[in-house]
């Protein structure tokens, strides 16, 4: 990992204020910012890892847990909120046994809340990877997630 990170830092050598760009590159490479990646960065950049972590946590774009094989996004925008998005979120959380922002133990799913997917007519909306599921109910959620789990990622 260290050599990879050195390579990334080289891209931004001697540029001031490049920390966020570096973090973005690291996230692009690994999918998230692991604690190892941050300590390696700290050592190379000669700033403390706590400082880097502080900067990174300010931005929602950075993730600190390894993303699962499937990205589940539940919309809690205005329309979805009105049509019971929170109930959907709760169901998904219970089904996967994680909170939003986390990844399941078997690294199959990671769950995120989003503000609007731009298809409010379909509310409430859930998105798995790139597939959009509209007008979903708690029962449907279970089936959808089960399908993904069984088929290893392919939609039925």
């Amino acid at each position, binding site marked *: 990992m260290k050599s990879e990170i050195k390579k990334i830092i080289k891209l931004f050598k001697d540029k001031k204020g490049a920390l966020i760009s570096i973090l973005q590159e690291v996230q692009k490479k690994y999918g998230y910012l692991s604690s190892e990646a941050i300590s390696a960065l700290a050592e190379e950049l000669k700033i403390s890892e706590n400082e880097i972590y*502080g900067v990174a946590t300010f931005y929602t774009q950075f993730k600190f847990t390894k993303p699962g094989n499937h990205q589940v996004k539940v919309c809690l925008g205005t329309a979805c909120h009105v049509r019971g998005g929170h109930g959907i979120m709760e169901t998904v959380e219970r089904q996967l046994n994680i909170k939003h922002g986390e990844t399941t133990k078997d690294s199959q799913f990671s769950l995120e809340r989003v503000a609007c997917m731009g298809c409010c007519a379909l509310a409430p909306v859930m998105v798995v990877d790139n597939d959009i599921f509209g007008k979903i109910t708690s029962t449907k959620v279970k089936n959808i997630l089960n399908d993904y789990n069984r088929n290893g990622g392919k939609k039925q």
Partner: protein
Amino acid sequence: MITINGKKITYKEGKTVLETARDAGIYIPSLCTHQELEPFGACRLCIVKIEGMQGFPTSCTTVVRDGMVIITEDEELQKVRRNVLEMLLSEHPNTCIVCKDKSECEECHFGPTKAGRVTGCNFCPNKEICEVREVADYLGLEDVRLLFEYKNLPLERDDPFFDRDYNLCILCGRCVRVCQDIRGRGTLAFTQRSHRTKISTAFDKLHLDSECGFCGACVDVCPTGALSARGSKWYGDADSCTDSACLLCSVGCTFSFESKWNRVMAAIPRRDGSTGGQACSRGRFCIPQLLNGSDRLKQPMIRKNGKLIPVNWDEAMTYVAEKLKKFTNDKIGIIASPSLTNESAYTLQKFARVALHTNNIDVPTSDFTSPIMKTIVASSSAISNEGKIKNLEKAKWIIVLGRRIFLPSSALNPSIYRAKKKGAKIILIDNETKAKAPRNVDVNLKLGVIQTLNLFYGIIYKLFNANPNLVKDCVNYGAFVKSVKNMDKNKLGKDISKQVEKITKIIENSKGCIIFDQGALRCSNPEAIVNAIMNILILSGNPDGVIPYYDGGNDQGICDMGATHQYLPGYTMISDSASIKKFEKLWGTTLPKKGKNYREMLDGGVKALYLTEAVPEKKLRNIEFLILQDIYPSKIMDKADVVLPACAFTEESGTVTSLERRVQKITQAVEGPGLAKPDWKIICDLAKKMGTKGFDYKSHQHIFREIKETVPFISSEGIWSFKDKPPRLFPFTIEEKINELPSTPPRYHYRGADIVERVDDFRIQIEKGGA
């Protein structure tokens, strides 16, 4: 001239409105500013009105300009401030602050009530010194109209020394800034954002895993009870505060000792000291636990029938006096603890020379101190009054020999970091091949002691040849030039020559400092290294930049006082029969010309030994009569014939000398336990019992007056220096016969008390590798 609240006030260029107002005695509330830290503008309480400026500028970030008309207090400002404070308090437990019965409650609640969770001021460890309450009182806040939201964060109590309850945090950022900007650590950072913003480490790791040095700077600046020292948080108001200094290492940080029930409960760093209010975990947190142990020596004891029996002082003194008379003078030895005060050390060496007629007196750290003293006495020119630690900040390069000086909590670290921020290059030379270089180090060379010496010779060669005329006026110039010319560069080795190039490039044409600890001198000819260090500093124009990092709290002072076998007070050579006449006349005695050093004394050179500090008991040989004068029992007590209880540095008054040769006061904060007495008093009593004259000192000041007479360079408190001595160069030859001695791990102790053993939290810190 500016106007504040209608009053004309003179100002200093470059100061902020807040500083100017405070200097003039005008209070402006603020929770995020701190005199040590850069303005931050976070709390918005210090807003003022300035004519010609829009809105309410924050006074902490506004620089004073001529002719400003400022209003710091009116109903409009107070209203805005109250609103700001209400918002702050909507996330900080506030029931007690706005309680109607506050004043009656205060009358019956003395100090904080111990509680698991802090839900109000009465349960807060910071109750007595809370800045939030101060501001609320000033603004006359009666109600918080916003809904209170308790953050319900877990208490963080798994780290040594201090607890963290971020439910009380108001996010002023002082701790983050002091950790990053002053200490250069960056253990704390703002994480997350908006409502969830929190001060924390990366991934909420323990401080033990986050490069924390446990210096306590964050605890000292926290305006709330969010950060609190675990050992002292529940004692409430102290009975008394005593300004004094710490003796656990030689940096000489000044502290205010808070005492209650005749015990030191906390040590708060004082900002007027040489380190500017920065200390280390030992000074900040360890002193109470270290010195308040229940097993402190409280009574004199004499060995009778194989057992140590408590006796009174008179009996003990009579016994010792009679026993000592049975030994011939050169068979009696005295070990002076580097933790004695100057007064005690002076009395002790006078006792050795006048009462016992012996020069067998030395410090246990003499391997380190004696080569330093020899070189310093020979070379030291006048040094600046500012002090070496303050000057460290101005250095353009700093060579550090020994990783220990770099350990995160070392009180020299902030000064090194400040220099680094101003562009200084930091070079660390150590031999720990596995350890990573600390973050603030620019160059880390892994060299043994002998290689380091060769590196220095190479640097001296380069520096001298670059500018030979610079040092023309120095003593020994001719001999030095000769030795440089005779130097065989090939003897240095290829690797070293490369390093020489590298380091010389950094240090040439600029002034710098060299800090070294005892590990740097571990070879058969330690003097050569000290000489080389002095040569480099003189060649780079800053002979004042030598900083020896002693282990003992008062190593420098003990040597100044002449409690060593080569020197009388003030570095008068013991063999110099002309100079010692002055002392013979003053003390009314004839002085012996020779003495044994520490090793010789322990190795069977003496039969009766007077210890003022426990030494490793395995080293003792052929001792027939052993006196131990200490604060705690130790293994060597099994061999002691007499045990005398002494006072620790919080229990006596006197002066000590720090590594920058700053003579500073220590003041008695509490009474010693049981019958314990200050060392100088014990020694004087003993001398009187032995019928020796000249020990009728009434107080420590009385002794200091005599010190001033005998030691010409010490006139009062403050930095001492030899006046008008030109710098001296040291000729050298590259020796091939020098051996490197094995290095020993650093010992953290104060007299017989091992800090690692006695303070659990410190042990945990050491085990994690950062002290």
